[in-house]
């Protein structure tokens, strides 16, 4: 294309020509109209962005990566065999494991100590990805406020297997999402757990 054919815009002249009260006011008023509409709709209750937490809660995905859960087998023992893959995979180095022997020869190895420092945890889910035994999954629990660090933010086997939040929030990120959950997957009970989003609290 020949340079001579391109339209030439003199920017200074164009700016002077467009600067007038009407066009300036028009743009501003258009924006204010949008805001006003939104405000009216909010006030009338039609279109609320803000939710009243904690009475109202947002539903989270079935794959949500929340606080961890250690799963157990049918006989009640933890599936975890202390292979250390989660500890190795963790980018935040927040998992501490100690292994011990079990007399059950088909299993041989169990974790005598399994601790996740949730204050360090970045909830990436690499540990769940790494686990070959489906022993570690994540629940949909995200609410982790405490009064003290370390004693309350470091979860050992006890709290990783039994705490009321597991049932309340349900299971989240775990291997084989498309298979139905095995009945005894979650620790402590044998009833089936549904995949529905967590019910809203009133």
């Amino acid at each position, binding site marked *: 294309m020949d340079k001579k054919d391109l339209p030439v815009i003199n920017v200074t002249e164009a700016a002077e020509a467009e600067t007038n009260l009407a066009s300036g006011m028009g743009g501003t008023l258009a924006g204010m109209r949008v805001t006003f509409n939104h405000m009216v709709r909010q006030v009338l209750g039609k279109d609320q962005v803000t939710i009243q937490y904690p009475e109202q809660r947002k539903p989270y995905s079935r794959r949500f990566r929340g606080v961890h859960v250690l799963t157990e087998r049918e006989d009640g023992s933890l599936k975890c*065999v*202390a*292979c*250390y*893959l989660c500890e*190795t995979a963790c980018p935040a180095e927040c998992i501490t494991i100690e*292994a*011990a*022997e079990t007399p059950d*020869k*088909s*299993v*041989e*190895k169990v974790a005598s100590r399994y601790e996740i420092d949730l204050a360090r945890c970045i909830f990436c889910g690499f540990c769940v990805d790494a686990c*070959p*035994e489906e022993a570690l999954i994540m629940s949909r629990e995200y609410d982790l406020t405490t009064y003290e660090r370390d004693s309350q933010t470091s979860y050992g086997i006890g709290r990783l297997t039994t705490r009321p939040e597991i049932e309340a929030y349900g299971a989240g990120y775990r291997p084989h999402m498309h298979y139905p959950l095995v009945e005894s997957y979650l620790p402590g009970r044998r009833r089936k757990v549904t995949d529905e989003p967590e019910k809203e609290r009133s």
Partner: protein
Amino acid sequence: MPLITIDDQPIEVETGTLIIQAADRLGIEVPRFCYHPDLRPEGNCRMCLVEVQGYPRPTVACTTPVVDGMVVRTPHAGDQARRAVRGVLEFLLINHPLDCPICDQAGECSLQDFYMHPDYGLHRSQVDPQEKVRKRKAIDLGPMIVLDSERCVLCSRCVRFSAEVTGTAELQFVNRGNQVELKAFEDRALTDPYAGNLADICPVGALTSKDFRFKRRVWHLARTDSICAGCSTGCNLRIDHFQGTIERLVPRRNPAVNQSWLCDEGRMSFHALGAAPRLTKPRAQGTGDAVNWDDAVATAHGGLHAIRRPGQPSRLAALASTSATNETLLLFWRYVSETFTAPLLDCRLGQEDRWVDEREDTLLRRRDKHPNTRGALLLGLAADPAGGLRPMVAQAQAGAIDAALILYYPPLVGAEDPATLEALATLVRAVPFSVVLTTHEGEWGRNATLALPIAAWSEEEGTYTNYAGVVQYAGKAVAPPGEARAAAAVLGGLLGQAGRYPGGSTVQARFDELAAAVPAYAGLTIAGLASRQASVYPPEGRLPYGQEGFAGH
């Protein structure tokens, strides 16, 4: 000398060299299970199959000597070899249990490593885990070894080790076909004192170390090359440790000293370090109060120095240790000989110089449970025929000694000799001023004027000279506990207090001084030792009495 090519790389080797050895020299890894450089080759695993031009079938590299002009292709560069090895690996894995999460060998397992190799691994399994042949697991074979016969790939290394090296023939295969199992006779515990080596030579997790069982994953371990301080053989080993704790010792191959083996006592020797409480702060007598290092060194030298009388022999008993590194001993000798005049200077607790060469068995162990007797002798620390701990004690009891400087390390192998401890206690009690450099708390040192904490064998770097005169470098694996310091550093401090040049502070500098002081070490350097430069004991070193020569290897 035959000239051959492996994967298009030429190499000339001695007649009788096996193809697999030639490949190793070229740095080409031919995968293998049953071949081990210190065991007779058997060729039964079929993993080392290579193509040899002109041979119709794949050839077993570990039993075939090279022939001039051979053209060999390994699985890395040859299609036929690659397919053959791939097939063998698939066969090995069809019955192998899915034990990786619970198996200690993970991370140093030949099956894992070969399977993950792109040239001959990563096949897709065609076998249902339910179909696999089941065998017995977690069988206790005594204090050192646990057997899992399901994981065994039947390479027979352990069977050959038990037959050829220890001669005890405790392990054998039973049954036939894919039901073959490794078994100890009547599942009896293995009683030979080299059983720990079975866990090292087993390429998979069939034979594992009971001591190390489930302690830690191997990829977490830091590794430091070192030398065993259990006896005068000085087997080469590697200290595997994690965050300041030693987890295990494994042998390093040195055909001249220990081949690929460690005795069980030496392998477990690191446990002795934690058996009793360590001395962690310099301590003064009586009050037992901790003293800071500067004060401690100043007081020590002050007290020792005070006993000198001009023109007369110093009434000092200076007991060095045959467990100390050469560098430590050099500084000990320098401090004592430069500060004092003709003191009682010796390194012997008993008669170590007499039996430094004596064997305890036909394989590795020696009767002298100190790693550096030869080194101490070479430095002239046993020059007086009538010297040693007992004569010092006698003299002290007769009131002829005014001060004692004692360097003492408890033995890592075997129990402490109560008679020795009694003698040390007597010496300390009988002397008005005593300075004790030691690693552990001990009753004998309670009455010492000053007890200075020093680093143990794995906590300092230095060299040791084994019974045959081979000088070997041992690295520092972990930090000494509390305020303990390397004995060489403490002695350097004493030298400094004495106004003498304390010598270089790096181990290289100290060894160079050593090499200058001891003609036998002339020409050796730390770098050379770390890379296993040969070191020999020529007769022009300072020989202690009674040593005409000594038994070589």
